[in-house]
């Protein structure tokens, strides 16, 4: 076994351990801030796996989009909604966890059985390595052009939708008619439904 092969195997084992332990931490840890940082670690390890698979462009995209955008967004959401609250105990919660754990273990066994028993038709072609970026660009602008354009529309819709859903400021005049808006209604709609305090009007 050459030194390159053994290095590759060591990298795979280390990255796989990080991925599995990190995702277990994401799911099981009590403090959600730790979970969010562990999630960033899992994303970085997955990017390392992509590098092992000779896909440098997708690894860079993974780091940029997942670690740079999604993880930071999750951290901001945690800071916005972070409130220490004691969750109401629910009866049968332990039973529910054990049952769903059994179901997930069954699903895992099924997936691994498919993984092992299927005769994969592995092609012996050489990997194209650094040319992968050019090839992805060719795909995006020839045979995957329609999904590419749809993805841009989807991103625009997601951006506008997120702003509309999450914004807090209110309009003072109705856009359609120009009349002043009934501010009481707006205040009412932005106060929590379940808080026990007298309504503002």
């Amino acid at each position: 076994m050459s030194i390159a092969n053994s290095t590759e195997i060591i990298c795979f084992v280390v990255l796989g351990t990080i991925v599995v332990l990190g995702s277990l931490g994401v799911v099981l840890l009590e403090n959600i801030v730790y979970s969010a940082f562990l999630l960033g670690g899992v994303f970085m390890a997955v990017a390392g796996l992509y590098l092992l698979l000779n896909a440098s462009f997708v690894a860079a995209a993974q780091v940029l989009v997942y670690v740079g955008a999604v993880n930071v967004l999750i951290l901001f959401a945690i800071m916005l909604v972070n409130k220490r609250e004691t969750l109401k105990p629910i009866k049968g919660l332990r039973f529910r966890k054990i049952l769903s754990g059994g179901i997930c273990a069954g699903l895992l066994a099924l997936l691994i059985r498919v993984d092992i028993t299927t005769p994969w038709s592995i092609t012996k072609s050489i990997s194209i390595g650094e040319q992968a970026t050019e090839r992805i660009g060719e795909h995006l602008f020839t045979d995957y052009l329609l999904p590419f354009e749809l993805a841009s529309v989807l991103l625009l819709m997601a951006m506008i939708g997120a702003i509309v859903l999450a914004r807090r400021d209110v309009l003072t005049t109705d856009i359609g008619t120009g009349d002043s808006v009934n501010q009481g209604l707006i205040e009412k709609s932005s106060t929590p439904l379940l808080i026990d305090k007298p309504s503002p009007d």
Partner: protein
Amino acid sequence: MPETPLITIPLEAYLFLASILFCIGVWGLINSRNAVRVLMSIELMLNAVNINLMAFSSFLDGELIRGQVFTVFVITVAAAEAAVGLAILLSLYRNRVTVDMESFNLLRW
């Protein structure tokens, strides 16, 4: 052109890792009571799918790396999903003053 090194890690190893990650994500999705953690579990499952796509692209697809193109699309959709999901979560938090999944039953009864 330099000699490309022989790939020593089998495809099954990547699929094994991806299935473990997916099952952890499913368990977290079912059992989390914090809504932010539910979104994190969804991201874990999407990453498992991405590992699968990349492994198939590298081992089965040869020079046409269509799996990598699909992975790029999945990353795009995941970013949009995270943005909209967290906006919905903020708006729910404003209405309910909690992130407990058990108290989000406005549409149930």
